[in-house]
């Protein structure tokens, strides 16, 4: 897979370029916003890993451009992921907060590639997720984590409670925005479950 890695820290670029290359990816690097734009204009990569604080051009602008081109993006962020980030546009396909383990990034890349290559849709009641497009009901962008949470709940699995909070809040917000029935609620002694919201 062709990956564009954009980060202002050259050590970060070197370390992850070697790591991703070892994973059979073709990696190009950029250390500022203008380089990202220039390199993407030359060749469209299949995935962009973008630092949320890039020099010269704000990462949000680049993210918006990548959203418009439907290019999958993983944002490596200096801030903690919160609901606010997840309910606004532009939205990355996945977020990782510093500091993170290499395995976490590799897992995300694999997960995004797998979803992109499938034509399947995740359906539940009046809701469907377009896995390849990372969209909820063809309208709102969702992250990889949100899809996986929904997938886990549809198959009655257990969630990692510590990390799921903001993603669950964001999903509930998006389901409410689209006036869909399912909601994620916590049930004592059972954990998070999908329940049907009765329309008032």
């Amino acid at each position: 897979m062709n990956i564009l890695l954009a980060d202002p820290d050259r050590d970060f670029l070197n370390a992850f370029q070697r790591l991703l290359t070892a994973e059979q990816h073709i990696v190009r690097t950029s250390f500022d916003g203008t380089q990202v734009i220039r390199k993407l204009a030359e060749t469209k990569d299949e995935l962009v890993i973008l630092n949320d604080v890039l020099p010269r051009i704000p990462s949000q602008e680049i993210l918006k451009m990548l959203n418009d081109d439907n290019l999958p993006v993983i944002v490596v962020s200096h801030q903690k992921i919160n609901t606010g980030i997840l309910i606004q546009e532009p939205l990355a396909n996945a977020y990782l907060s510093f500091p993170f383990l290499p395995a976490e990034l590799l897992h995300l890349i694999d997960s995004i590639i797998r979803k992109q290559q499938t034509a399947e849709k995740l359906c539940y009641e009046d809701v469907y997720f377009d896995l390849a497009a990372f969209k909820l009901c063809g309208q709102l962008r969702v992250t990889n984590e949100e899809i996986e949470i929904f997938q886990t709940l549809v198959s009655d699995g257990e969630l990692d409670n510590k990390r799921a909070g903001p993603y669950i809040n964001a999903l509930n917000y998006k389901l409410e925005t689209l006036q869909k029935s399912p909601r994620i609620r916590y049930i004592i002694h059972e954990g998070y479950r999908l329940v049907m919201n009765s329309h008032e």
Partner: protein
Amino acid sequence: MNKARKKFIIYAELAIFVLLTVLLSVMNIINFTMASEDADHLTAMIAANNGSLKHGNKPNGTFSDNGMRFGSNHFGPMGPDSPEMNSSLRYFTFAFDEDGNADAIEFRMSAVSQEDAEQWARSLLHEETGWSNSTYRFRVYQDNDRTYVTVIDQSRELLPCYRLLIISVIGEVIVLLISILILLFIGKRLFKPVEEADRKQKQFISKLETEFKVPLTVINANTEVIERESGSTEMTQSINKQVRKMTKLVKDMGTLSVFEETDVTVSSTDLSDLLKVQLDHNRSAFAEKGLTLETEIDDNIVFVGDEEAAGRTIRELINNSLNYAVSTVYFSLKNQNSRITLIQTNDTQLPLGSCDQIFDRFTRLENASSVQSTGLGLSYVKDMVKAHNGRISARVNNGCFTLRIDF
């Protein structure tokens, strides 16, 4: 206002109040005692002259007398021995025989009629000496089978005492108010370096956290590359272990500055649900540690504030219980008098007393040596509570550590 500055002002103000009160009380007591002694000296002199100052041993101090000195003849010509006292003193003396017949020995008073004065004197027959009607000093004494009652007016002599008392009270209030202003001014200057150091410490922690994040990620990635290319060694495993420790510390630091750098996001949260959910998440963790969990949670308690922060606060309290409780953990959430009260109680081996220092950053108490923690959790809780205008306190009593939060 900084906590240390507030404490300094309160204690300094308290010290000034106590000192002033003691000083002014002693001054007023001495002043009043001397006025009483002067009055007794006069009544004794009248008694020695058979109830009147017209004859015999009159006050005979002169300006050439001893002048200002303490003692029974306190102030020479200014005191009760003043030569003017004979004409200026307002008093009356009645003598009563065994049958109760009254004889007016002397009556020099305008405030009462002679008849009323006789009744007044009669009412004092069974006393010895003291104050009557606030400003009148009396003495009851025997001579030739008759009982004498002398009452002297001391209102003019007591007036300075009352004035001094009023001036003392007003003076004390004024001094306290002025001292508050001075202490506020001095405190601001005095604690400026302390507050500055505190601010810089927070900035430093925040900077440290930001600056360490990327290097830790890079070290992790490089170690992973080395392990892939040359295989895992004792050295790379050690690097991984230490990096994991540092990563945890940095993540803890990251949560520290939340309430110092950003505004609280306000929304309505069902705190009852939040607490129940978090406790339910950790039910198995409590069981694994052999801890009995007891709860008393009122339904539908709505917390208006930062939802994420409230969630993290509850998680920190639960972590605290998991780390330090010996056998029993108790959580209570109640809505009393439109205030939300959250109480966390663990049985503990900590010594008795207040332990507010646990809210200081990186502070861990005596029982914490075996526990893997950074000492930042409860510091976060305190910052969160303060940011929501709440109150927080911690105490150890009867072998129980109790943390109480009021919103």
